[in-house]
């Protein structure tokens, strides 16, 4: 009942918000916040519960739609609900300049409702239904802004439809083979299936989930979609929506199949998990370095979205309890900091009237200190600096790679971090540091409804960085439900037997170091404050606004790595589309417009039927 209530509240709430918008904008905004908050509360109440309920029957197919909650779905549900709430809060001010807000709020809540539906589904038909609802509503939201967003939305939905159809094929085939779509039933029935069939299933699901999670080869929709979507939705998209793919991977690989079945797939090194891990590794390296080349703040983050997804896949693929824990934990951490970063970019965009080009910005630190702190915390998490959340999850993944003797994979993950550092440094510096261009002299900090989500997320980045035990406790519950050895964890980090990690000692060390540095500075000579325009180059005064050394920061690096990072996959898809178009054009010319030809077609068809019957006896 509880799950049905949550879904009813979230779907009907979305509709109510639309209707409220017809009365007044204010009512709508308040209601939207309330609905999303209510969903957060309702979901958090289901913590540690085991619910299974059937909510709708389709007798003609002999199927009934069912819902369930376990630790895995709760984990994703709470993240979805939380991010949904924060993004609605952020939208209140951000969206003020846009029109069709009723539609916007409706779709935002609707997408969140669909995601909740996905994670609560206890059978694959409900899963598919909610999955598709999520896909088309995402398409409607990506396209919302018009202009370039239209092409991005179309690219997204075509890939998404292709992925879902692959998934549908697998789902229907499961149903015909086993006569049930219930996830728990399939989990036991599939244990005895032949490896070939399992591989076919996995391939289909990997296409479906891989497109959503943007693994390399299937990633090309993502950069455009993240960039062109409206910023609060980019946050939702990058935070949780894309990670429905990770949920799917976990569901099919561990909830349903389990390690025993997975280990049987393949010979030696050529097994499913190892290949998946390598796909993860490639997904880390190429996109992360592509991010380095971007000048559009959102595009830069988008490519990181793909790259960090690679870490999750790598962790899940390696299939040790540390690795899976790392992968799941990284999903949460990534959601937190990337949402924070998209909010920060959104804030910048909002206050500078839509500027996202990193070469145009600069020096905003004093104008927008809260946003700066948010962005700083965000990139720290993204890099994985100790005491931020990203550190712990990446540590888990590195640790398991090293312990299990995968030096090349570990190296790949490490290279990814270098690329991350380089590119997010550029991100932070080009926006906040350096000289403030004069045109931004009047920029102010964003209002509190936009600050609050950023502050909350900043706190979360630090909280989970220092006390990783909180989420890891839930994650070890998830691992228990997968039937693998749960990762043992203390509140501050990892116990000795895994290799000690204690965030509180790191915190203490950092604090002590900070105090020492502070003392040294206060003992030394007083520094003199200078104006930011008081700068000199080669001994001569630099005129105002001319000197912004961060512009075209990595030009030299571009020239070296740029040619290797041409997105050949994307080019290939475009080539495919072009070719199919001209082929379709050719096909269309069957209809010549000349009625004589048409009459001929009819006669030939009849003649063909009779000829084949008499001449070939085909049937």
């Amino acid at each position, binding site marked *: 009942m509880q799950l049905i209530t949550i879904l009813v509240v979230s779907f009907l709430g979305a509709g109510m918000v639309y209707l409220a918008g017809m009365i007044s904008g204010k009512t709508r905004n308040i209601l939207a916040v309330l609905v999303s908050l209510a969903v957060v509360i309702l979901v958090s109440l289901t913590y540690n519960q085991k619910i299974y309920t059937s909510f709708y029957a389709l007798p*003609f197919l002999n199927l009934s739609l069912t819902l369930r909650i376990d630790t895995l779905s709760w984990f994703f549900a709470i993240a979805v609900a939380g991010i949904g709430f924060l993004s609605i809060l952020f939208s209140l001010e951000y969206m003020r300049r846009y029109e069709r807000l009723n539609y916007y709020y409706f779709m935002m809540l609707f997408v969140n409702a669909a995601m909740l539906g996905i994670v609560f589904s206890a059978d694959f038909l409900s899963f598919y239904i909610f999955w598709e609802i999520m896909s088309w509503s995402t398409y409607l939201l990506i396209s919302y802004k018009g202009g370039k967003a239209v092409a991005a939305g179309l690219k997204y939905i075509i890939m998404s*439809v292709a992925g879902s159809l*692959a998934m549908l094929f697998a789902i229907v085939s499961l149903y015909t083979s086993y006569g049930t779509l219930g996830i728990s039933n399939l989990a036991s029935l599939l244990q005895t299936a032949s490896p070939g069939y399992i591989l076919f299933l996995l391939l289909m699901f990997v296409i479906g989930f891989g497109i959503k999670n943007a693994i390399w080869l299937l990633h090309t929709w993502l950069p455009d979609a993240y960039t062109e979507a409206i910023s609060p939705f980019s946050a939702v998209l990058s935070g949780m929506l894309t990670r429905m793919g990770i949920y799917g991977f976990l569901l099919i690989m561990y909830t349903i199949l389990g390690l025993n079945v997975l280990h049987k797939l393949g010979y030696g090194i050529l097994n499913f998990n190892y290949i998946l891990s390598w796909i993860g590794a490639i997904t880390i390296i190429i996109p992360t370095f592509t991010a380095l080349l971007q000048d559009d703040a959102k595009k830069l983050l988008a490519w990181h979205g793909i790259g960090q997804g690679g870490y999750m896949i790598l962790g899940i693929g390696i299939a040790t309890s540390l690795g899976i824990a790392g992968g799941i934990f990284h999903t949460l951490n990534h959601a937190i900091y990337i949402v924070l970063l998209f909010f920060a970019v959104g804030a910048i965009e909002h206050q500078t009237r839509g500027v996202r080009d990193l070469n145009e910005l600069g020096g905003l630190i004093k104008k927008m200190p809260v946003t700066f702190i948010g962005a700083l915390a965000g990139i720290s998490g993204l890099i994985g600096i100790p005491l931020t959340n990203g550190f712990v999850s990446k540590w888990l993944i590195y640790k398991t790679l090293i312990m299990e003797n995968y030096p090349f994979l570990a190296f790949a993950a490490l290279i990814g971090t270098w690329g991350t550092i380089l590119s997010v440094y550029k991100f932070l510096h080009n926006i906040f540091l350096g000289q403030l261009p004069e045109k931004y002299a009047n920029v102010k900090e964003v209002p509190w409804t936009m600050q609050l989500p950023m502050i909350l997320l900043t706190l979360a980045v630090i909280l989970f960085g220092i006390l990783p035990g909180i989420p890891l406790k839930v994650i070890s519950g998830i691992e228990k439900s997968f039937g693998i050895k749960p990762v043992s964890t203390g509140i501050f980090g990892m116990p000795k037997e895994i290799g000690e990690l204690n965030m509180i000692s790191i915190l203490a060390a950092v604090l002590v170091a900070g105090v020492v540095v502070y003392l040294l500075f206060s003992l030394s000579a007083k520094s003199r404050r200078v104006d930011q325009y008081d700068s000199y180059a080669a001994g001569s005064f630099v005129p105002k606004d001319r000197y912004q050394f961060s512009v075209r920061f990595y030009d030299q690096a571009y020239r070296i790595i740029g040619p290797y990072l041409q997105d050949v996959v994307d080019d290939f898809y475009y080539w495919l589309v072009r070719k199919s178009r001209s082929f379709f054009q050719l*096909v269309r010319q069957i209809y010549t417009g000349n009625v004589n030809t048409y009459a001929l077609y009819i006669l030939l068809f009849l003649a063909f039927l009779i000829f084949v019957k008499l001449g070939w006896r085909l049937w």
Partner: protein
Amino acid sequence: MVNPSLLIGVPLALAFSIPLFGLISKKIEKYIPIAALLINVVICFILIPQVLEKPIVVSIGGWSPPFCINLVVGPLGIFLTTLISSVGFLVSIYAVSYIKEEPTEKYHILFLLLMVGAIGIVLTGDIFNLFVFFEILCISSYALVAYNKDKEGTEAAMKYLIQGSIGSSFILIGIALLYGGFGTLNMAHIASKITLADPTFLFITLAFFITGFGIEAAIFPLNAWLPDAHSSAPSSISAILSGIAIKTGVYGVARMIFTIFNAGSILTFIAFLGLLTLLIGEMSAFRQDDIKRLLAYSSIGQIGLIVFALGIATSLGVFGALFQIVSHTLAKALLFLAAGYMIYKVGSKSITSLNGIGKKMPLTSFAFAIGSFSLIGLPPFAGFISKFSIIYAAIQVKKPIFLAFIAVALIATVVEAGYFFRIVQNLYFKEGKKLEKVTETSGFILISLIILTISIIAIGIHPQFITGLLKEAANELLERAGYIGWVLGGT
């Protein structure tokens, strides 16, 4: 008990009385089709429970079958009649505001006659009678395609007429062959004797029927008339042609193959034809810039899917095909009606001219979007259930060839999604030009759009509204002995 022959009689009588009503007042004329079809819908809903209990066979002229013309109101017949009457009813509501060009009374007469033809085809149990109704349907559609009296419409109607006549004559040849072979025109009677004849003779007769009905059913390569005819007819007629007329062709093919000829061996070939039709239709639609042509090509694709599902020939496959008939009829009628009014407001059929119309005509665009989503097969709309059933049926037969077929059909769906999603974006998210004067539809047009939209969503969310009837209808096609038994008595 209501006499099922009223289903044909009422529209027929009212069709010819339209000029008489016109003598009283010009204004009444356009409401006559609404009244006629409303009566039909009511009769249908009264009859459905009775028919599900026991099929009704109406003998005309007091003789018992096979010596008379009879109507066979089985589940399939009543299902299609209900569908035809309801959609016809909604389209006639639409036409009240939409059809302005004189001579409107002729439009309404022809429209009702088209309905009579369609209902007659699905209800009759006599093969020559079937031909007569088929001709009524075809001739009124030829005339209606040319109703706008522009060059485009006349040319399309002419092409349609030529191809349609070839089809009709093939059907007539087929009937003549059957009559020569069996000496009877009663469909059940022929069906009961079919095993007695020489297979080659039967096949050639069947080939004539498939080709003849295949033209109306728009099976590739017999469908070349369709894009022209459907796109240049008035939009209300396009809706009827795409929604109903081609389905009667499919009914004809299905009735011949399943009930009369019992030609199980040709079904895989039929499925292949359906698949081919699907592919060609979707690929041709992809590049269209004329919205009505695009919808017409999309109808070809959808018909292909229906024929493909019929070719699977399991009860689930036929069920899926019938469900697809419902979802396609509703969705395509909705799309043509919505697009028709947008075209009327904007004054151009090009898709780009509809850019940004979502802001000016929110309800119409919404209806269009729902229709396209349903056609693509997205949940929670009607099209999802039908596509799911078809995919399920195709995989369930466990034949490798059907697995390959369905994989190709899924790829065609991606193409379909490609163009429909593009149009929806055009409507909502692109900047429009010259839309100042465009205003939202109102009155009658809105009523029919809203009812269609609601029924698509309602059937999508609660398919049980129709599944019971559809299951029975699918059984009627698959169990020919039952059909023969209803008509001729015995088992």
